């Protein structure tokens, strides 16, 4: 089971009355490609942050890749995230003044196992993602949005995570770039047998995914 949430409740410390998440039960199987659609601000970021271990819930069980995040310390969760979960966001996926290789290298430094061969894997990924060789050594701020988002995928995958979490990664792209991005992403996901949880307001993407869910259905799921 890739993800299993049981009896999750979450609210921010300074506003305990507003229950942002109230999930009786939610699960995702390994290998699923889930598209969660919904408008911004409705708790999607909160949900993703709980899944990635950045946030802890006030109550409930959070199980990711068969590990109980709610039983881990902050440091353990950080390490778990570095080793097992890749994240791609809408913007600011990369350190702008570093080049693509260095960005990927930076991500690889956080993995516990260490990886001497990261450079080879990085170049393989960049090639697979159709990022031109000349663009690998430019500061990523010099790259186009489409290129940056593709480099971001490489950055997210360098530590060979089993789960990829994507938070509106195509929302800043034009349609051509978006389609290109999704094609490349899905190719890599299936090749590596990964699980994908993808949040977007754009329902037109649904054809690429195995499951489509409304955010509101998940976040306010009573027991």
């Amino acid at each position: 089971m890739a993800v299993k949430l049981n009896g999750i409740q979450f609210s921010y410390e300074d506003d305990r009355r507003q229950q942002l998440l109230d999930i009786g039960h939610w699960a995702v199987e390994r290998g699923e490609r889930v598209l969660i659609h919904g408008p911004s601000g409705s708790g999607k970021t909160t949900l993703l942050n709980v899944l990635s271990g950045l946030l802890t819930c006030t109550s409930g069980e959070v199980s990711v890749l068969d590990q109980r995040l709610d039983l881990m310390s902050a440091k353990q969760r950080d390490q778990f995230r570095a080793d097992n979960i890749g994240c791609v966001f809408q913007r600011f996926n990369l350190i702008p003044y570093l080049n693509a290789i260095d960005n990927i290298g930076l991500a690889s430094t956080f993995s516990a196992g260490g990886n001497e061969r990261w450079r080879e894997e990085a170049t393989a990924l960049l090639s697979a993602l159709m990022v031109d060789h000349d663009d690998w050594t430019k500061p990523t701020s010099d790259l186009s949005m489409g290129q940056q988002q593709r480099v971001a995928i490489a950055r997210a995958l360098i530590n060979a995570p089993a789960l990829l979490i994507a938070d509106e990664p195509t929302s800043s792209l034009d349609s051509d770039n978006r389609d290109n991005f999704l094609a490349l992403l899905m190719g890599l996901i299936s090749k590596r047998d990964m699980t994908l949880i993808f949040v977007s307001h754009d329902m037109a993407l649904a054809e690429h995914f195995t499951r489509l869910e409304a955010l509101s259905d998940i976040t306010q799921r009573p027991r």
Partner: protein
Amino acid sequence: MTLMAISVAIFVLLGIEQIRQQARDSFASTVSGVDLIVGAKTGSLNLLLYSVFRIGSPTDNISWQAYRNIAESDNVQWAIPISLGDSHEGYRVVGTTQAFFEHFSFGKKRRLKFSEGEPFEDTFDAVLGSEVASTLGYSASTEIVLAHGLASTSFTKHDSQPFVVVGVLAPTGTPVDQTIHVRLEGIEAMHAGASAVPIGAFAPADVPDTDSSEPESITAFMLGLKSRMSTFNVQRQINQFAGEPLMAILPGVALSELWQMMSMFENVLRLISALVLLAAVLGMGAVLLSSIRERRQEIHLLRMMGASPLYLFCLVEMEAIILCVLGIVLGGTSLYVALHFIGDAVFARFGLYLDATLLSPEAALMLGAVMVSTIIAAAAPSIKMYTEAKQVT
């Protein structure tokens, strides 16, 4: 900009330390071979400054008789009489005897050496310190005219009595380098007036003309004693000398009095440079602090990649430390270059030898303090980074 500020602060801090240390070493080295300095009763610092460093003027002279008396006493191994008060092109002229070349030592028991020529013999012979010779372009057999009084544009020049350079001393790193040395008789001859006759004016009437007429008075004299143990005794004897108000000082003691006087000034200087550093370091802290807010997205990215809040804390501290190290390198290098270039000029003018070697225990300690203060100043932004990192969602 922050880097510049820190570099400047380091430059000032190290520069002051350097000058302070070098001044002390330089002064100490000048008097290291002398056991006692004797002159007319005046402040001991005053005596030290005018007799050895040619700074200031003597208040009174001492008689030749008194000098002979003391120089010939049992405890004294050697004596060097000196007569001050004349100048040439801004460099002081000092009258002395052969004893100067034979007995004067400085630094670590170093002797005077000649880079050319030899010690004076005749009344109108002159031996130049290395700086005088190189700055004015004089060498052996150059003729020079010496004037009475200290200003280089003196109006009482004695044009008809030129001196001849017979020797140039090798550099010593002491005021000897800025001095023109002549015989005591030479000084007397200058005062004698336009007459070309070098002797006789001050000798007792019925003594025949000889090259070695005795001067009536001298400014001061230096003593080397046979045994260091007798120093205080001899000093006391001189201070109580009947017939003339004399005083004897131990150069080392007088120097430490000088440093004590200077210490308040030095401490003010150090305080100022510490404040300069404080300003620079606080500036750095402020810059870092304001940058944290700008870096929200970077923080989020790093957190998602697995960085812990502690990691981010250390990141900011490291940025501060790197700034500090760069500032030290930049400031230190600038100081080194500056000393290299102005060192010669300072030496020529003040007789203060400024070494460009910067690493002393005090300097190292100071840099350690700089590093520590940087780390502390960076604590505020680092902690802010930590709390931001914990909260970012």
